[in-house]
């Protein structure tokens, strides 16, 4: 858990401090110096419009990382709500939520996101909508599974007997037990969100120019693959490193949880 929190803080710092650390304005066009190799002034070189790649990477973190973080949290909230509703609400609620989950899961999320963003029009709003709507289901399943197993616990029965409202029961008695497993799911979904946003950016369905984002930077770099192949490395590398870090943290968390096997 500690490594996950450490990771989140590092990412958070990157997202927040990125603009401050960036040496240049990411949208400043400088045609004279376009496609130049790395130099002491422009550590990673410039792109086709002369913009500093390092600055664009740092600013881009706000979208590729920050937005992914936001979207994954929204999915967490929505999915947990749905899962708890299924666990606490009785047979009908359970069936409805589960079939809805199945319906949304029946489709590869990237394709669905492409369709949603494509149809609703590119923009941050539709991006957030598309990624949240395709990203809540896993949480729902986990929350429901754990919720159902908790229904028969002594203290849950006591809470219901005392007449505690379902919301309070969820907050006090379900959430603490759900948090570890939900966090594991969240790490996976955070990684997917990062990959998703950059993939959509690469396909032209994501964040729109001139806003810097790692996926769109790759799209730009692709055109000049022959002349400046190096440009293609940096955004991709950024994505890989972030996703790898999250996956490792998530694996570590999953292993710790498996060892602990909380006695209740």
């Amino acid at each position, binding site marked *: 858990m500690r490594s996950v929190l450490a990771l989140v803080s590092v990412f958070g710092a990157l997202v927040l401090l990125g603009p401050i650390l960036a040496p240049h304005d990411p949208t400043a066009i400088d045609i004279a110096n376009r496609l130049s190799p790395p130099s002491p002034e422009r550590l990673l070189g410039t792109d086709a419009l002369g913009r500093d790649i390092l600055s664009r990477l740092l600013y881009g973190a706000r979208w590729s990382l920050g937005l992914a973080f936001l979207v994954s949290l929204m999915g967490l909230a929505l999915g947990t709500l749905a899962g708890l509703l299924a666990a606490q609400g009785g047979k009908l609620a359970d069936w409805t939520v589960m079939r809805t989950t199945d319906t949304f899961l029946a489709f590869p999320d990237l394709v669905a996101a492409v369709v949603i963003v494509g149809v609703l029009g590119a923009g941050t709003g539709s991006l957030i909508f598309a990624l949240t709507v395709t990203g809540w289901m896993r949480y729902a399943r986990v929350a429901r599974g754990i919720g159902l197993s908790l229904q028969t616990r002594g203290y849950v*029965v006591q809470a219901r007997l005392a007449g505690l409202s379902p919301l*309070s029961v969820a907050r006090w008695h379900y959430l603490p037990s759900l948090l570890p497993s939900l966090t594991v799911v969240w790490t996976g979904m955070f990684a997917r969100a990062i990959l998703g946003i950059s993939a959509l950016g690469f396909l032209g369905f994501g964040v729109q120019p001139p806003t810097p984002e790692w996926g769109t930077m790759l799209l730009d770099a692709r055109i000049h693959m022959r002349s400046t192949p190096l440009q293609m490395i940096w955004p991709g590398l950024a994505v890989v490193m972030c996703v790898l870090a999250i996956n490792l943290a998530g694996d570590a968390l999953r292993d710790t949880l498996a060892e602990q096997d909380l006695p209740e």
Partner: protein
Amino acid sequence: MLSVENIAVRYRGVTVLQDISLTLAAGRTLAVVGESGAGKSTLIGTILGLVRCSAGQVTWNKAPVRRCRPALVMQEPRSAFNPRVSLRRSVTEPLIAERRPVDENQMAALCRSLDIPTDLLERRPSAVSIGQAQRIGILRALIAAPPLVLFDEPLSALDAVTQKHTARMIADLQAKEGFAALIVTHDLGYAAAYADHIAVLRAGRIEELTTAQAFIDAPQTAYGRELRDAAFALGALERVA
């Protein structure tokens, strides 16, 4: 007064309880004895209003039983408390649910009667002994002063000495607070010593329902006799010469 009228509980085609009728007045104790699988847990759930009856009704003073907010003391004290929360929070949950303030004097008095040092309540469930946990469970059950309290094998997780003390405490508290007590137990000795009436539950039906003394002296059914004789043989009951 608790009134269980002809209830039946069916689940997935299986009849778990049938033709159950009994009454219990305030301040009185009814012991329900029977083997495992006879339907004791379902009976508890139904009387508490947590399980819906397929037939019949359960009322307290002619109103649906849920309205009197019956309390439950569970068999296994460890799982009866949220492990992540202080015992004080768990104990006061019935009051929190009803948005009632905590009467510190009343709580202190109950703690004294149950031999619970108040600093124990600041701890987590894992930091107290089983005996203490069970008594804290009783504290939780009584904190909102319910008129009806159910006990599901309240002594079976405790060692012999603690059993005696706890049984005594329950009886004393009942005399003081005046609640009706329905105790599910397989310990006929306990039932004989503390209950006014004994009901024998077998395969979802009540085989016998008489005063405790009458049952011990002369059980009406063969099954009742089996239970009583077994209790004598195991030393749970002592023969009066």
